[in-house]
C-alpha cells in the first residue's frame, strides 16, 4: 500500500475512532416520502459501534430506503440522524467518508476491467490506487484471474464480488449491505459473512438489510424488523432466529406490502 493511501486511511480512521466512543448511528423519527407514498414513517434507531445489525422485512418494507437515507443518497423528508456524531444532512460529505455501501446494483463499469474498476473507486475516494493491493483484493474475492478482463463479461455473481472488493479495499467504519447474499453462491455467501465479521472485529459497524435471515444468522447480533416503513420488532439475536421464524407469519398477516 503506498504512503499516501496509508496516510489517508489512517487520517479517516483517526477521525472515526475519535467518534467511535458514541453510537455509530442514531436516527430520530426519520420519514421519507416518494411522491404521495411514505416509504419510511418515523424510524428511530440507535446502533452501537461494532454491532452487526440485521434489518429484516419484506419487499417494500422500507429497508433499502432506510439504508439510502443512512448513506446520504436520500435526504429524509422528516426527522434526522447522525452517523458517528455527524449530521446526515448538514455533514453529508463527512458521513460519506465513514460509510460504505453495497446495494442491489453493483455500480461497476462494464467497459472497465476489474482492476480498473477498483482503481477508479479508490481515486473517487480521493486515494491513490495501490495496484498491488488491488490485485491482492481481487485474489481475495476470487477474481484474480479476471483482473484484466472487462466487467461486462462477468456473471452477476462475479460482478457482485467485484462490488464487494471495492469495499474490502477501502473498508468503511459503517458498512451498509442491501441484500448482500443475492446472486452469490455458497462460497460467495461465506465471503460476505467473513467480510462482515472482519469489519466488526476491526471495530466497524454493519447493517445488513435482508429478507434471508438464515444466511445472516451466522453474523448478526441484533435484528430490527421493518414493516410499512416502521420498526415493528427490535431484539438481540442469540440462540435462535426468533424474528426469522415469525417472518412468514407476518407476511400472511399483511406485513409485506
Amino acid at each position, binding site marked *: 500500500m503506498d504512503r499516501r493511501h496509508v496516510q489517508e486511511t489512517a487520517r479517516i480512521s483517526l477521525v472515526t475512532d475519535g467518534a467511535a466512543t458514541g453510537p455509530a448511528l442514531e436516527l430520530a423519527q426519520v420519514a421519507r416520502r416518494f411522491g404521495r407514498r411514505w416509504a419510511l414513517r418515523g424510524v428511530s434507531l440507535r446502533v452501537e459501534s461494532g454491532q452487526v445489525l440485521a434489518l429484516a422485512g419484506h419487499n417494500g418494507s422500507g429497508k433499502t430506503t432506510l439504508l*439510502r437515507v443512512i*448513506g*446520504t*443518497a*436520500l*435526504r429524509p423528508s422528516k426527522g434526522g440522524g447522525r452517523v458517528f456524531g455527524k449530521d446526515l444532512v448538514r455533514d453529508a*460529505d*463527512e458521513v*460519506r*467518508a465513514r*460509510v*460504505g*455501501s453495497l*446495494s*442491489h*446494483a*453493483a*455500480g*461497476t*463499469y*462494464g*467497459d*472497465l476491467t476489474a482492476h*480498473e474498476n477498483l482503481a*477508479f*473507486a479508490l*481515486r*473517487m*475516494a*480521493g486515494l491513490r490506487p495501490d495496484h498491488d493491493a488491488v490485485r491482492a483484493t481481487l485474489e481475495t474475492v476470487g477474481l484474480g484471474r479476471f483482473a484484466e478482463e*472487462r466487467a461486462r463479461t462477468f456473471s452477476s455473481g462475479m*460482478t457482485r464480488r467485484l462490488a464487494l472488493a*471495492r469495499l474490502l479495499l477501502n473498508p468503511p467504519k459503517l458498512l451498509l449491505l442491501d441484500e448482500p447474499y443475492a446472486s452469490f453462491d455458497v462460497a460467495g455467501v461465506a465471503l460476505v459473512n467473513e467480510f462482515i465479521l472482519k469489519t466488526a472485529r476491526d471495530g466497524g459497524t454493519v447493517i445488513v438489510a435482508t429478507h434471508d435471515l438464515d444466511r445472516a444468522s451466522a453474523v448478526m447480533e441484533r435484528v430490527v424488523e421493518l414493516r410499512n416503513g416502521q420498526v415493528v420488532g427490535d431484539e438481540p439475536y442469540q440462540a435462535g432466529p426468533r424474528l426469522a421464524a415469525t417472518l412468514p407469519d407476518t407476511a400472511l398477516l399483511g406485513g409485506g406490502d
Partner: protein
Amino acid sequence: MGMRGEIYRATSLALKDLTTERRTKANFNAVVFLAGLMLLLFGFALGPDADALRNAAAGVLWLTVLFSGVQAFHRSYEVELETGALETLLSYPGSRKAIFVGKLLANLAFILLVEVIVVPVSAVLYNLPMGRLFPGLLPVLFLGTLGFVTLGTFYGAMASRLRARDVLLPLLLFPMLIPVLVASVEATSALMVGDVMGEMASWIGLLVAFDVIFLFAALLTFETVVEE
C-alpha cells in the same frame, strides 16, 4: 477533502468516461454520423447557391453541434445508470461538485473532438475559407461549446432522474441555450461573412459572461438536482 483532492477526483471521473468511450466508440461514431448527415441535409435544404450556403453556414454549424451533442449528454449519464453506478458515484466521500466538473470535462473533450471533424466537413460542404477562418474560430468554438456543455451536463444530470429523460432533456436544455446559440452564431457569422458592424468583441464578451454565469449556477445547484 481539499481543492487538490477534488480536482483529482474530477479528472479521474473525466478520464474514466473518456476511457469507456474510447473502448466502445459507439457514441462518438453515432454523434459524428448524425452531425455529418445534418450538415448534408441542411445543405440540400438551402440549395446550391454558394452565397446562401455561406451566409447560413454559422447557424447550420452550431445547430448541428447542438442537436448531435445532446446524444453525448444522454450517454454520459446512461453509463452511470446501466449498473446503478450513479448511486455509487454519489456515495463517495467528497463534494459532488467534483462529479459535475468531471462530467463537464469529459463532455467538453468529447464535443470538441466531434467539432474537429464537423468543422472541416462543414467548410467543404458550405464553401468556407478554413485557412483564414481557423485562428479566429478557435476561441469562438471553445467558448460556445463550453456554455453548451455546461448546460448540457447540468440538465443531463437533472433528466437522468426522470423516466422520460430522452424527451425531456432537449425540452429543458434548448430554451436555456438560446443566448449561447445566438452569441455563438453571431460571432461565427462575423468571422465567416465579415464583421461589418464591428460586433465581434461584444459577442465574445457575451459568450464569456454566459459561460461564467452558467458555470457558477450549475456548480451551486448540481448537488440538489442530482439527488433523488
